[in-house]
């Protein structure tokens, strides 16, 4: 028995040592690759390395587009974009687990320790089924619908059908923005259907004549109808001019104690450049400059 134990211990040690060496090898290997990339980068005029980003799923598609364009110019740079939600974005920046956190709402006063860069403004479109005859609602009517005070389309000029309210899950950036802008302190009607993505909300609304929901302006397409709010269409122009009332900022946040890496700064500059902002516009959001 003693022999077995000894043997086991020995093999364990060997394994540990072997793995340890392997780890060192791969690390130095990576560093070597980096060096090579650096020299290449000198020729193509780009930056290299990896930028990590985590946070709001509403910002994610835009970040991915921006990242793709940035990587086209800097073939040696890599950008890893992951979701997790606005809360996770702030946490990632505070705990330095990512270069940038993405946040699709105003930063709260108690969320400290971070620098905020607004990269775009997002409007929230109030959507109904394409066959719904209602075109225009006031902010107050929308509030009453989502609070359950208006329950029939006929009360606001539509057919005599009960309204089916579709909302996002608690904690979603879009729901947070909608709650802040539209509902305030009033609670969402309890019987609302809850969907956990922009796509799922659109799916519900496009399949249900009597449904009403809300999505990011960037997620608005011909499957559903975006309502006018207080007489203004949900368009980029109306949001920039401040006429369309349901809008929120898209922010990148980074830890304030630590300077951005060269690469992260390069990416941020790109995003804030005319070129980056053109992509913001292409994606259906509103540029900040």
């Amino acid at each position, binding site marked *: 028995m003693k022999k077995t134990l000894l*043997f086991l211990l020995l093999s364990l040690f060997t394994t540990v040592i072997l793995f340890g060496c392997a780890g060192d090898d791969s690390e130095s290997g990576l560093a070597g690759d980096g060096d090579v990339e650096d020299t290449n980068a000198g020729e193509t005029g780009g930056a290299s390395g990896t930028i990590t980003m985590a946070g709001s799923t509403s910002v994610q598609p835009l970040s991915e587009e921006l990242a793709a364009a940035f990587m086209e110019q800097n073939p040696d740079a890599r950008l890893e974009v992951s979701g997790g939600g606005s809360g996770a974005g702030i946490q990632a920046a505070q705990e330095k687990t990512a270069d940038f956190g993405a946040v699709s709402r105003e930063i709260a006063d108690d969320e400290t320790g971070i620098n905020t860069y607004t990269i775009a403004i997002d409007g929230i479109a109030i959507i109904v089924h394409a066959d719904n005859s209602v075109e225009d609602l006031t902010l107050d009517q929308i509030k009453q619908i989502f609070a359950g005070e208006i329950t029939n389309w006929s009360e606001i000029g539509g057919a005599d059908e009960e309204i089916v309210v579709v909302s996002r899950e608690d904690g979603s950036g879009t729901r947070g923005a909608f*709650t802040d802008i539209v509902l305030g302190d009033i*609670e969402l009607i309890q*019987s609302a*259907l809850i969907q956990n993505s922009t796509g799922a909300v659109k799916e519900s609304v496009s399949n249900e004549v009597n449904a009403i929901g809300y999505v990011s302006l960037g997620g608005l397409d011909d499957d559903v109808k975006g309502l006018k709010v207080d007489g203004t269409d949900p368009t980029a122009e109306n949001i920039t001019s401040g006429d369309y009332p349901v809008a929120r900022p898209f922010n990148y946040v980074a830890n304030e104690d630590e300077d951005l890496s060269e690469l992260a700064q390069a990416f941020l500059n790109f995003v804030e450049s005319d070129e980056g902002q053109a992509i913001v516009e292409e994606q259906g959001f509103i540029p900040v400059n």
Partner: protein
Amino acid sequence: MFSKTNNNLEERIVKVILLILALTSVVSLGLIGIFIFKEGLPFMVNYGISDFIFGMEWDPLNHVYGIFPMIIGTIIVTILALLLGAPIGIAVAIFLSLIAPAKVTRVIRPMIDLLAGIPSVIYGLFGMVVVRAMIRNLAHGPLSESLPSTYQTGYSVLAGSIILAIMILPTVITISSDAIHAVPSEYHEAALGLGASKWQSIATVVVPAAKSGIITSIILGTGRALGETMAIIMVVGNTVAIPALGWKGIFAPVRTLTGNVALEMGYAGPEHRQALFATGIILFIFIMILNSITLALVKKED
């Protein structure tokens, strides 16, 4: 002589390694349990266990965490799934092990295995696009007079149960048919010899003899149904409300315990997160109760 000791040593090493590997699964179970309870239990005690379990309202923004509607939702969806899935599963098991010709079994068996391997998100997609639409047509058409509008969208207990019923079929079929196979063929033959018809023999002799295996299959299916998350989120509407009593309730949108955790974990702040872990504890307890029943049944059988 040398080779013999060598063999012994080898044997022992393999034994020890296997033991360590076996312990890993026990340790991971322990760690998962400890982790969930460590994160969730303090919150539950602070908030009040009965307020948490029997609370009717879930509103994390205002620090209100009541999961009773989700417990009810989980139970209703699971029970309905069993009512739909178990009889079909058992019937298929009986057919495959006692009635079907070998050729047919050879075709159907691999298909059932395939059914078990389909990712749940695919079931969810199917449920969302096909099953939900069918239920919507029913609820919004012929039944629209008697159902409230929120029960007419197709996102419902029924949609979830149908999808779950399909998902538990492989579990129920495989384990039940193993149990039926294990019944000595003499039972069947003796019954036939006493003048029973084939069907009488199956219904009164063979199936009762395989009873505990069949029940085990149903309980394991229940476990599968309770734990299913992705497919369920996509079809049940995720509304935090207790369905109406009576038949209308099956058209009600509900939220399950698993769905609650998966929906909100990504965005949750610290306290909200703990509440979701506490939701996990309740699920954990559900599953432990189910497994204890299974164990007790198996023991009784032995």
